[in-house]
């Protein structure tokens, strides 16, 4: 029990539970399957990005360029399927390939320049963004082929009243990718090596782990999820715009940090990240459902971030003090 209460996820879950109870009793719409499905579908993009960011943060890195990667993937994917046709599989494949490629460019630069990934990815963000704007001239894309714009539901179920609840492909991807990531991080050697790398980089090098390979994996994986997520995003909103995703870098990092990942590397869990995303989603939903003017959303989110990071820092400080105590004779 004491172990559970020490974990960050526990407190996060408590906060979410409190919010859920509040919303369940004060509004009729919150605790309905329809609302929840819709809510998590609209946050599936943030969720998928967060999964990629989690891996980067665990490894001790950071990536600010993934939004540009995602947007470039969207544009290339859309252009190809509009001009040459194709199918969903091809759309996701294009997104994934572009994402991995741009992610690996980050990995390459970070490994060989050996400067802080924050700075490198700010540079690549601008490079990608400039190229994107140059080639697309900032044009929006919305004339998707019919097969792309029809609803993509994995399955649909009906309740006794005959209401229909679809599980969209985007929502399905969100959940399935989280499960896959949890598996990778817990049960594969490469997942554990990512933790090891974030925990002690020098030791990982001495152990003979392939640091370059791991760096490529981490940033390539971030790119992969940015690519897949961007196609899923296009499926939901049915438009591709240059500024729809770019600029949201810090929102994603905020969600993952709320979920307990540390910017120092080495820590963070899939469950925590899921809860972090869920918290952000529920707050936005709460604001709408409780009829609070939507301007309050950012204030609430900002306050929660400030309080959460402050409590973490304060606890760390207290722990350090406690460790220094002497058992006076």
């Amino acid at each position: 029990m004491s172990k559970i209460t020490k974990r960050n996820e526990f407190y996060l879950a408590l906060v979410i539970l409190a919010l859920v109870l509040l919303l369940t009793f004060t509004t009729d719409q919150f605790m309905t399957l329809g609302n929840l499905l819709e809510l998590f579908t609209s946050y599936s993009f943030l969720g998928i990005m967060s999964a990629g960011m989690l891996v980067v943060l665990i490894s001790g890195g950071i990536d600010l360029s993934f939004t540009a990667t995602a947007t470039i993937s969207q544009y290339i994917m859309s252009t190809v399927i509009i001009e040459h046709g194709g199918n969903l599989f091809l759309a996701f494949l294009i997104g994934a390939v572009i994402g991995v490629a741009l992610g690996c460019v980050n990995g390459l630069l970070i490994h060989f320049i050996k400067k802080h990934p924050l700075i490198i990815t700010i540079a690549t963000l601008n490079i990608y963004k400039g190229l994107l704007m140059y080639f697309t001239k900032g044009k929006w894309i919305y004339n998707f082929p019919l097969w792309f714009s029809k609803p993509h539901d994995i399955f649909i179920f009906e309740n006794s009243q005959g209401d229909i609840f679809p599980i969209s492909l985007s929502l399905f991807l969100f959940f399935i990718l989280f499960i896959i990531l949890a598996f990778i991080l817990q049960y594969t050697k490469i997942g554990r090596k990512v933790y090891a790398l974030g925990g002690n980089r020098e030791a990982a090098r001495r152990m003979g782990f392939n640091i370059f390979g791991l760096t490529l994996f981490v940033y390539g994986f971030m790119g992969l999820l940015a690519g897949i997520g961007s196609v899923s995003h296009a499926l939901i909103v049915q438009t591709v715009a240059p500024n729809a995703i770019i600029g949201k870098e810090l929102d994603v990092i905020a969600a993952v940090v709320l979920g307990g990942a540390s910017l120092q590397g080495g820590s963070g869990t899939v469950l925590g990240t899921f809860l972090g995303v869920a918290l952000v989603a529920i707050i936005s939903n709460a604001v709408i459902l409780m009829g609070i003017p939507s301007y309050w959303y950012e204030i609430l989110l900002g306050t929660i971030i400030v309080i959460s990071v402050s409590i973490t820092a304060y606890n760390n400080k207290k722990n350090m003090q406690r460790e220094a105590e002497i058992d006076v004779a």
Partner: protein
Amino acid sequence: MEDSPSYALKLKNINKHYGGVHALKAVDFDVQTGEIHCLVGENGSGKSTLIKIISGAESPDHASEIFIKGKQYRALSPIISVEAGIQVIYQDLSLFPNLSVFENIAISEYGEKRASLVNRRRMREKAQQAMNKINVKLNPDKLVRELSIADKQVVAITRAIATNAQVIIMDEPTASLSKHEIDELLKLIINLQKKGFTIVFVSHKLDEIMSISQRVTVLRDGDKIGTYQAQELDERKIEMLMTGREFDLNQSTDKKITQKTVIEVRQLSKRKNYKDISFRVNEGEILGITGLIGSGRTEVALSLFGMNKPDSGEILLEGKAVQFKTNYQAIQAGISYVPEDRLSEGLILPQPISTNIIVPILDRMVNKMRIFIKEDVKTVVDNWVKDIGIKTKNPENAVKTLSGGNQQKVVLAKWLATKPKLLILDNPTVGVDIAAKNSIYEIIRQLAKEKLAIILISDEVPEVYRNCDRILIMHRGRIKEEVKASEISEKVLNEKVIGGVVSV
């Protein structure tokens, strides 16, 4: 080319050049199976280079010969070296704080390419077997972050065992351990030897070397001075072999302690830190405080320095009661504190020597508009660089470009520049060469002659014994005993300090 198999490791004619530097000069080095062998030398003597060659991290020059268990190698690579049963445990231990004990011990599983999935059950068994092999018990599921330094050391050793190492090389394993923890470690090493492991111990702390090793190899400036049976050596002889010089190891005499009390502490107490601490230090006196790590020495010192507010009791500086809210106030009042950890607390390594010297007195280097007076800064810096003998071409160079001994001189210069009445030194010679150590002692004695009151906190009994007039032995937050250095022998003092552990 035959070689006796009773040697676990034999190196012949090892040369290594780095650019123009001849780091190792035709060194022969051998380790017998099952022995504890010490490799000693000052910083820069070539011992790290030799270890790097054995671990395969560096290749020796042409015509060097390496034999492991009788098999000859031209050069090693990290993989060859590990496969041949050699494991190096570096000073920082190279553990993963965010992973569990068993994952750390069996971490080499992750490097193997056979399968891509983790087999936790097998890793756990492997870790348990390794722990059983050397009779240690640790909770396999605990995160390494939550362990004490000594237990981390145990994990690192167990990890070496788990990779089937037969020769374990430990680089400065005792550097960050307390006396008690060192004793525990030495016991573990002797135990390893009994189980048939061969141990190479790299160190520059001398007393621990003597207690457990069979043979000692001394390096100096890239030359091998010789390999000796441990019984033939005493501390003094090793010092001489390492440095090529003899040092005065006698107690300091010709002191001029005056009757004027600089600092007096009465009944100082702080919860979970220390209790009922009372002492006084006069002008020209060196007071030693020793005791094990965790005895509260540093906490008391920090209280005098305004960085650890006491709960009760009095501090009198030259007869007047003082209460410092910050260390800035303590510095202004004339108290200086040289922290134990030079690299993280004592110096700002990347910044210039000049800046480091003036940090504590930035406020005294400005005019009324709080703007630096360039000439004042230059005068202070130049004077101190000269006075204390910091070897540098340009005081604008970063401190990190200096050797350990010169870095410690910068620390002393910086604190003396504050013109203190009381200088507190917390383990001032940790990680410093013997030669530099002695020059620091000389500076300290000289300062006492110039009527500075000095408190010298140290782990090393010989250090306080040789330099101090009176010595306080602290144990679990209290002063256990006060002794006069002139009325006691070093051996008795040592027993009193260690005795603290037994009498718990």
